[in-house]
């Protein structure tokens, strides 16, 4: 099923946020995605971040630093975002399996250079956390709206990843083709 992208963003200011922090292994005994919903980022310890807080509940976009999603292959990591209506991650870089899992689920793992990620963090700080990010997949552009300011960012996405998102995911794509 095709997803919608963009919305209020939450900022996680650390590199190497790993899959155990996103969804601890003890919840991997669930056999439905929906059952994961309450546990998003449960083991992430970060100043000012509350996994049970309103900010995460409201968020539709996650912004973070380098090597996001490193560690395990568990697709439960993208799923726990998916079931919490977070379909867009924006980071400096990703672990390979996490990034592929996001696109395979028809979601976006957008990469921006470190300096542009920093601009987003600066914008967030200036707006005291109230920031919305629109995603325009067609023209490969993000528009961040915060405290009356609006800044845009071009992003690259490989034609294959774009095709996966447009197909709704890898199963749909592969099933139609192979």
């Amino acid at each position, binding site marked *: 099923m095709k997803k919608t992208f963009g919305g209020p963003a939450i900022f996680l200011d650390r590199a190497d946020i790993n899959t*155990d922090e996103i969804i601890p292994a003890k919840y991997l005994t669930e056999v439905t995605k929906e059952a994961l919903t309450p546990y998003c980022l449960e083991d992430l310890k970060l100043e000012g971040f509350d996994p049970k807080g309103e900010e995460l509940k409201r968020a539709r976009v996650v912004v973070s630093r380098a090597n996001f999603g490193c560690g*395990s292959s568990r697709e439960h990591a993208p799923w726990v975002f998916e079931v919490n209506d977070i379909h867009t991650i924006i980071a400096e870089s990703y672990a390979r399996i996490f990034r592929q899992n996001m696109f395979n689920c028809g979601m976006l793992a957008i990469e921006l250079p470190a300096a542009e990620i920093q601009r987003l963090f600066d914008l967030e700080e200036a707006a005291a956390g109230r920031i919305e990010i629109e995603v325009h997949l067609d023209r490969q552009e993000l528009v961040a709206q915060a405290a009356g300011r609006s800044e845009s960012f071009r992003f690259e996405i490989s034609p294959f990843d774009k095709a996966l998102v447009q197909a709704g995911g890898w199963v749909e794509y*592969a099933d139609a083709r*192979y």
Partner: protein
Amino acid sequence: MGQTTAEKIFAAHLRDEPFPGTKVLNLDRVFCHEITTPVAIADLEWRGKDRVFDAGKIKAVIDHVTPSKDSKTALQAKMLRDWAHRHQIKDFFDVGRNGVCHAIFPEKGYVRPGFTVIMGDSHTCTHGAFGAFAAGVGTTDLEVGILKGVCAFREPTTIRVNLTGILQPGVVAKDVILFVIGQLGVNGATDRVLEFHGPIVEAMSMDARMTLCNMAIEAGGTCGICQPDMTTVDYLWPFIQGEFASRDAALAEYRKWCADGDAVYEKVLTFDVSALEPQVTYGFKPDCVKPVREMAGTKVDQVYIGTCTNGRIEDLRQAAEVLKGRTIADSVRGIVSPATPKIFQEALNEGIIQIFMDAGFCVTNPTCGACLGMSNGVLAEGEVCASTSNRNFNGRMGKGGMVHLMSPASAAAAAVTGVITDARTL
């Protein structure tokens, strides 16, 4: 222009290139376990596509939580079991015959040089020890692998890692790979294959090569790859003797997958490991690595020996060597999990299980268990574990727990003294 091992395997398995840089490969093996497969099975059923591309190429095992510890894990096991039976997947390993996936599948001879392998498990990179391209994937890739026998990759570039010199006694593959990860960093090999070369690797057994390749993912690597040689052939010989007239003939065939002399690498790293000491991790990332000597005296509450990294017979022998005639400290719990029933049996026959039990270890059945905090040795808040596993993330073995990764000998030494200890000083 010459090719790397990964490039050769990609070229030989290419099914489609839907866009430049995206390669869809035919798969020789799709491995499955009970944590990441049931959701794929359920999704295939929901789509009305409950089929498998080739039951002979799919292998399945219950390994993460086994025997099941509660209703949820029992359901996961049942879903995998029922599916395997429904599709006549004959290489399915249930309670009593099951072991840790990355130990039992190689042990059964399922991985050959030049193969493409996927599994819904990040440590699938282990199988590159055979000169194969083996990559961990998520459940959706696994699902398409099961249904269609294909997987899409951005073709990775290759970093060649030359390991030269002579290892000091008591320094093993685990110390080498921890050191290499410390040098590369946790994302130093993202979207890259680590191709291991040099006299250190050539002298390694298959068990040791699997330890080496197992942790490629901890540097972000897609796969760790060793070059197939006579050690590879000797390991596989019981399974391939019907296919080849001689071991030399098998070697000649498998050598095709070795990197060409003029292969082009993104980077060539050479480490002379002659002066390397036993290594250990600190902190919560696997690239936080230092010599055991510098951490000596750090108190541990639990020692865990086993896993897909270090639960093979050679690992148990190295630990037993340290434990023989000794008992573990009163302040420590020792847990050992031989990675497969065959390894367990060998350890019994060799008297190794006796040594562990005499030392005061709890001997558990083969399972992933405590490595990811699921069962059989979960840590309490504030506890510290000396572990032969591969990941030291915060809370990995239990919320609030701390994990120090090290070799089997170092873990055994920590069990004896109750603190992190260089086994060579005992």
